[in-house]
């Protein structure tokens, strides 16, 4: 496998965890998710959801949920134990981005928003920044993503987002192991 498909898969996940729009709810997008899930060996039985259904599911899971059973997609909520936005997790993520001279351009989301972090992993894969990639995964992303993943599982979310989370978890762990193997 070359670098590009790997970073494309990461960006597929980043887009998948972004708010549903025309592009990331297209048939082509959903087909790619299913195909990659198959390649990752993740069993699924998710039929193509429509955009409105995903918008409601996304809002309730990642933005505001009336029962309080939601999974904020921000590292700060999980790292440092304070449960706040813009805390230690965001500072960690930001300092990693700065090491390679990057700064996120979001529409108001903090820098530790999951899609941004996944996009950053794609960038490190593209640029073969193995040392930084290992540190980013080990010291940051894999410190909180498993908590987020567990929280999602406990909620029992829309199957599409559970599939994306399972895929992302598998993918990050595979990359992590691969980088360890290559650097030791």
């Amino acid at each position: 496998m070359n670098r590009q498909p790997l970073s494309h898969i990461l960006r597929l996940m980043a887009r998948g965890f972004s708010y549903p729009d025309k592009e990331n709810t297209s048939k082509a997008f959903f087909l790619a998710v299913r195909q990659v899930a198959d390649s990752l060996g993740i069993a699924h039985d998710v039929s193509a959801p429509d955009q409105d259904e995903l918008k409601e599911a996304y809002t309730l899971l990642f933005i505001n949920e009336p029962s309080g059973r939601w999974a904020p997609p921000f590292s700060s909520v999980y790292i440092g134990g304070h449960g706040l936005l813009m805390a230690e997790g965001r500072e960690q993520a930001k300092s990693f981005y700065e090491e390679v001279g990057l700064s996120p351009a979001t529409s108001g989301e903090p820098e530790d928003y999951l899609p941004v972090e996944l996009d950053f992993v794609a960038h490190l894969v593209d640029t073969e920044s193995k040392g930084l990639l290992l540190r980013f995964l080990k010291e940051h992303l894999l410190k909180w993503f498993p908590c987020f993943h567990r929280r999602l599982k406990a909620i029992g979310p829309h199957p599409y987002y559970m599939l994306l989370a399972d895929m992302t978890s598998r993918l990050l762990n595979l990359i992590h192991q691969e980088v360890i193997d290559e650097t030791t």
Partner: protein
Amino acid sequence: MKRRNFLKLSASACAALAALDLSNKGFFKAASAKASNGKNALPGSLGSKDVPSVCEMCFWRCPIVGKVKDGRLVKIEGNPKSPANGPRVCARGNSGVQLLYDPDRIKYPLKRTGQRGEGKWARISWDEALDEVAHNLHKAKNKYGPHALAYFDHGASAEFMRDIFKTLGTENYTNEPAFFQCVGPAALAYLKTYGYITTGTRQYVDMKNAKAMLLIGTHIGENIHVSHVREFIQGLNNGAKLVVVDPRFSVAAAKADIHLPIRPGTDTALLLAWINFIITEGLYDKEFVERNCSGFDELKKSVKKYTLNWASPICDLPVEDMKRAILLIAKNRPHVSIHPGRHSTWYGKGDTSRHQALAILAALFGAVGVKGGLYFPTPVKKGNLAFGCVKEEPETPDESISEDYYPFASTFGSPTSRIIEATRTGKPYPIRLWGINGVNIIQTIPNPYHTMEAIKKLDFIFCEEILPTETALWSDIVLPGATYLERYDTVYTFDLLTPYLTVRQPVVKPMFEARSSFWIARELAKRAGLKCFNYNDEVEFIEEELKGAGLTLKSLNEKGGLVAYKANPYRDPKKLKVATEDGKIGLAIGDFEDEDLDPIPRFIPTPAPPKGYVRLVYGRSPVHTFSRTMNNKWLHNEIPENCLWLNDKVAQKAGIKDGEEVVLENQDGYRSWPIKVKVTAGIRPDTAYMAHGFGSRSKALTKAYKQGASDQFMITEYEDDPFMGASSHRTNFIRIVKAGQAINLPELCPPPKEIPRFVAKKNRTGGK
């Protein structure tokens, strides 16, 4: 990654990926050079950029400085330039950081997808949200007329959107909860007596220089307004004597020379007896009254029947204690602070009169415009702001729910109780759309069950909110408002003993898609086709306002964001002229008489608890504001829940132990969520107390949900003040429920014959 076989993609997967545009776009740009300056390595707030602004964790609005590092607010301190609070902020002021970065915040415009109250939403764009609100405003207005629109608002930033509703021609905007649930009766009483609102958002009472102070139901120290509390403490430090009238041994009562644990609902009886006593005994300031007051003879005649002996059984206070207290105040006149109170919506009938009696007492002592007494505001000059809203000629409804019911309501809008009734019943005219801004109406207005019933009848309801409150859960569209730390507001002037001018300005950029109230109102006005808000942004009108003070935003910020002025609070009693019609302090108010209301206060008994119940009163927690701060993590950690104060003898007889968790049931059968009992001798046997604002019913407030009990959900019975329509909040009664069984509470202070007992309406079955 040399061994790329760790992930084997099928050909179809590769093809599917290739069909998408997944190139690197959107999330990153090259970092700016300033991102990695060395200052971030310094601990805490060291090396921060300091931005002066104005707090809004409560509505005292202390000047603050936000300390920002790397685009993140790390600390809030008082603005050292402020002559009122200096570098100090209270616990809430400190905790603004936690509001800003609360993950529970409303982050994007939301549209309801489930039932009202369910809180199921989908994120939508600002365009869609604003278009939908504008469309519904016109739809409701065109179908039912302008008065079918109603607006509930609180805070300076909500005033922008209020202009839209006024422009659309409705009489139904409410200044709620600031006026109709809080200061209305007191503000009206003082406005008519002295010609200015001696108590409203602010209280013009010189406690710092007082020789004696009288607090009636005012619990300074539990309700923290930093400079006000400081002046109270400075007064006590200077040796001021303190009389506190309160059925509860409050923080202020603990510092009192005389604490009078009065029977709730009888404060006016005490005040009228005191007024009669000081007139009869010649303890009042004759020269001041003759020179500066009108209506003395009518007052003297009217209060003659109210003796201390008469008041004693009514108030459940010994004559000697009442006499001792008023002599202590009289001895120190005119330098006495007869505190005008603030939250005054207690019993409905008689609330305006009670504050009128307080205003009269101050005048009789000559405690007006002198050190230690009531004082006059020092206006701070600034430019006049005109948003240029072109209002249609207001169409008067056949029957107004404001002035046709309450002669002194219309200046401030329409009473909330009337809006809710009209929405529920369609009478005298239908109300079909509500806009809500800066207030959680379900935890603020009496009888939230009626409020929710009314919401179900609306065609459309929207709100601007920061947190997912109960009100947000009931809304069709939720607009994410910027916190006070993310927005500009109008120029802020403070006209008390330490006058200053400052401005609220954003400390950090708005999070997510939150937008300032001005931006939201301006965009909404545009889409609604209204000619309104002829400024492009907040800075434009702030510069216009500052021009009037000879300042620019730049020059103000160069001065530390605040300019202080010299106060002019006192007057020569020989030359006193107040802003009433005849220039005199009104001891009998003709405007009231003209409307067939009492020109001079008289005692109207408020019904006593039914047998088996005690009266529920409420107050403030020193680290919380209304129901706004319970989800704030730092404040939640300090005081996560409220408790019920219950008299020790009552508790013993009823078998209730300190710390025990119980449920409350009110006279209409509505039950609370569990609350722990604080058994104490510091409250009367006929009264129970809890701090307001707890017991949130929104699960989306993950820290506040179900923490303690909500007093608001126990307030199902209310009466309106006949002068201006504010709703009563202390006319409800509770008993205790343990293991599902209701326990009647023993009556240890039976009411005298002058006070009738409350009789529950027959059709009320509440939670049963």
